[in-house]
């Protein structure tokens, strides 16, 4: 069962939309289409990481990106199958 290759296959936990950088042209397109931003927080994150500035990712940004990239309610084992309160 064991494979040395398995050790190398777990990729880093890079999250969707964790960087948020935009080129000048892209920024212009976004600014003209208010519907692009799913929420005010998303716009704030994109604005804070404008072209030419060093992008930053805060813990709140990660939570926001995760929420906005939500894949839907997962099929997964319920907590009550594993342990009891």
């Amino acid at each position: 069962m064991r494979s040395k290759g398995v050790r190398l296959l777990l990729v880093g936990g890079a999250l969707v939309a964790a960087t948020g950088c935009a080129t000048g042209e892209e920024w212009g397109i976004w600014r003209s289409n208010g519907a692009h931003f799913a929420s005010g927080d998303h716009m704030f994150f994109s604005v804070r990481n404008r072209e030419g500035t060093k992008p930053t990712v805060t813990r709140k940004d990660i939570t926001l990106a995760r929420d906005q990239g939500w894949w839907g309610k997962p099929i997964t084992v319920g907590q009550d199958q594993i342990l009891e309160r």
Partner: protein
Amino acid sequence: MLGLAGAAFSAPEADRILPVDKYTTEKARGLARAHLSALRDLNAYIYHCVPWVETEKQSIGFFKPKYLSEDDRYLSIRIFIEQDPSPAFAALDHGNRAAAMFSRYAGFLLKTMTKAPAILADPGVGGFITILEWRKQDGSERTGRPVHETIAVYVPKPLAEAYLSGKVKIDELARRAIVLGWDGEKALGELKLPAWDDNFVYTYKIPNYKLDPEAKCS
């Protein structure tokens, strides 16, 4: 909005910790009250220092393993591990995927859960449960919903202490712990996993991640 600098301190959601009144026995409630500070510290540590994982709601607390008949309470946490799609990882069988996750997170979580000396010192704490969950990368074709794979690792306190003291290595921890697996909602039963040292959690940094100045990740 333009020009706003910095970010207010970001606190983890308190709902990751099971409220005291949700427990079903006084023993569990007593543990939860006695170690509330340690539970909050655990929640904050995972939130800030391992930001690519998500602690499940009401998953931090003192729970009874489902397979035990007595009210033996284990400190438990359940995390969802976010990771990039990887055809190579997806091509592994479930056992190897589970082994990889165990190797990367089980030992790390055990060490993190016992940072507060009072946890191990409390005779009411019988052991530790780490529940690791990740998205199955080929699981959604038929349902349209993401399918998660899960392993639950039950470590009785004597085994935890042996591991934490260095007497037991990660591979022996995997052999002696009880590990149950699930493919979505389907129980796979007990798994016997290989395990190896993996320091990813201690070395990986999300690019450009700005740690809250009040967070402590040492």
